[in-house]
């Protein structure tokens, strides 16, 4: 891939998918905007590196989702102790400001209670991805995925009913 094409494609991907990536990172970081911004940057650094290997075998959206999900999961490997504790403390101390803030808090608290992989899967569901697309991103077989998603939804309902 020529340098000009590399740059052009990167800029196109960034403009097209930045919001999608940030939202996923924000959910993964349980609503912490600073950590989500850092993670978004890390995702696009990986996109830049991987771009010469992009062969259009997967759709650009699936390809970017894969990089985003893998960066989130491996990023947490390095910083898990710090992140989990800091974010949970932040949640505990977060003042209840507005109705809209409360709504997002509930969202991040609920998905934040799930394990890393379940959190990723449910965010892909919330993003209205098809099961086959989620399977292509995560590598989990579709049948298995359906069962998992059903269980995650049940767990989320329990979490929200208990909390509310």
């Amino acid at each position: 891939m020529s340098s000009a094409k590399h740059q052009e494609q990167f800029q196109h991907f960034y403009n097209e998918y930045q919001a999608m990536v940030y939202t996923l990172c924000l959910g993964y970081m349980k609503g912490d905007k600073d950590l989500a911004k850092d993670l978004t940057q890390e995702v696009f650094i990986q996109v830049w590196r991987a771009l010469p290997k992009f062969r259009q075998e997967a759709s650009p959206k699936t390809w970017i989702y894969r990089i985003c999900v893998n960066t989130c999961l491996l990023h947490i490997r390095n910083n898990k102790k710090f992140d989990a504790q800091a974010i949970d403390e932040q949640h505990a101390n977060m003042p209840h400001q507005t109705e809209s803030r409360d709504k997002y808090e509930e969202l991040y608290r609920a998905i934040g209670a799930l394990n890393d992989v379940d959190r990723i899967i449910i965010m892909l569901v919330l993003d209205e991805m098809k099961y086959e697309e989620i399977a292509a991103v995560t590598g989990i077989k579709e049948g298995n995925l359906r069962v998992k998603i059903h269980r995650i939804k049940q767990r989320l309902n329990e979490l929200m009913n208990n909390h509310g």
Partner: protein
Amino acid sequence: MDSFESLKSAWKDSKQDVSADMTAIDMQRLAIQNHGKSKKFHLGNVAILTLVCIGISLFFYFVAPMQEIISRLGIVLMVGGLIVRIIIELISHRKADQIEFNVDTKTTALQASKFYAWRKRIHGPVTITIVLLYSLGFYLLTPEFLDHLPKFWVIVMDIGYVGIAVILTLVISTGIKKEMAALREIMDIRSQLE
């Protein structure tokens, strides 16, 4: 409204609030800079080890050429250990680069777990063996040092090296713990994916 549906609605609303923090050009610049920095960091470690290796070799070749076979064996162990360590650093850098982020998560997690399992092996028995052989090499120089230096300074050097060895052991054991924790966490991810 069903709890999950209310989450879905909150998710949609949260997406409306997103605004780009950086322009595409700024992000591109950051990506290029970061790519360069990461390469420099890895190659920096290799460069330091290479300089130490060259320094030791030149010192024993020009400044203090050793005559005894046992001393020469000591030098071979020290320099050889450093060379093996440099090769390991280069292989490790290459292996880390080979973890693909643009494939499905199961594949990436498998690649990452293989990498950390390899790192665990390297940080464990291999690095410990290198340090032990390097230390043995250092002490093999003692008899010939005694012929040229006052006994007091040779003893100071030998005892001083123990301090260095303790620090090295602590650094290595921290590294092993980190690699093992990373491996455990990757295995945890893999089991969550099943």
